[in-house]
């Protein structure tokens, strides 16, 4: 590498090459979409079954499963962080979008709990389904991944559907939202990630 012989044309080539190499560094492997997608799907359908078929009053207890998923996620993220060698602007934006989503989600649940009226709880499902669409939409835009954008728009449409549907049937709406917004895109992202990993491994060996 001789600085004197390094022409402006070559420097332009270096810039282009490096920017190209740094592109698509967002290492989304789809794992958390699948994890939370299936958790919420299972809890929604589970609550519907407990309510509709077994008439069990404390059917909402099934949502405590989310705590187990949350604990698993905590350790998973801690483990994954150790592997990270690059942090992009997109990674940083997305992590804060998802943190905001979790804060607002918990806040909504708290506000509904404080309100105390049974009739208000009928609105929580449509509100949460609409909320699922927000980080999904932003992620879809940032990752330039259409299945997430489509999933987010579906969430918003389903939230309207849930609002005009009686309980317990409206519990099937978050399950449908999860399938379209997180499970299907998560599966596609996972496949892409595994394919890319295999390609890298083949390239190295």
């Amino acid at each position: 590498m001789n600085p004197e012989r390094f022409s402006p044309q070559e420097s332009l080539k270096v810039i282009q090459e490096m920017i190209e190499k740094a592109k698509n560094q967002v290492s989304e492997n789809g794992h958390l979409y699948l994890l939370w997608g299936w958790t919420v799907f299972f809890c929604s359908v589970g609550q519907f079954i407990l309510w509709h078929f077994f008439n069990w009053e404390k059917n909402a207890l099934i949502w405590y499963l989310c705590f187990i998923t949350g604990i698993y996620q905590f350790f998973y993220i801690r483990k994954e962080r150790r592997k990270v060698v690059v942090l992009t602007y997109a990674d940083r934006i997305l992590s804060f979008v998802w943190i905001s989503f979790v804060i607002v989600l918990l806040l909504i649940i708290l506000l509904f709990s404080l309100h105390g009226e049974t009739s208000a709880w009928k609105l929580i499902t449509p509100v949460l389904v609409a909320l699922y669409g927000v980080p999904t939409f932003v992620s879809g835009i940032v990752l330039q991944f259409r299945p997430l954008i489509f999933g987010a728009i579906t969430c918003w449409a389903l939230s309207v559907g849930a609002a005009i549907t009686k309980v317990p049937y409206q519990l099937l709406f978050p399950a449908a939202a999860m399938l379209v917004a997180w499970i299907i895109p998560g599966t596609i992202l996972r496949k892409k990630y595994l394919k890319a990993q295999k390609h890298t491994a083949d390239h190295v060996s």
Partner: protein
Amino acid sequence: MFHDLDPILHQQLRLAIMSLLISVREAEFTFLKEKTNATAGNLSVQIQKLKDAGYIEVIKRFKDNYPQTLCRITPKGITAFETYVENLKSYLNTRPEN
């Protein structure tokens, strides 16, 4: 009008490091080494030069008992890179390739 190209940036490996860091927010030494195909020794020297110029900040920390070197471009580095690209453009426009 042609302006002199910043000598700190007008060097292949340093420019490669800066181009990578302008694209990502922060990167580990191993990432830079892999993408630039440079030797660890040469990369360390050039990182130090960029750090001395105030173009990047270098964060040394321990991760699982292993030392980790994290590099991040500074606002001064972003400005320098942008100026370099602007000067490069004017140079390429005024001096056609022979």
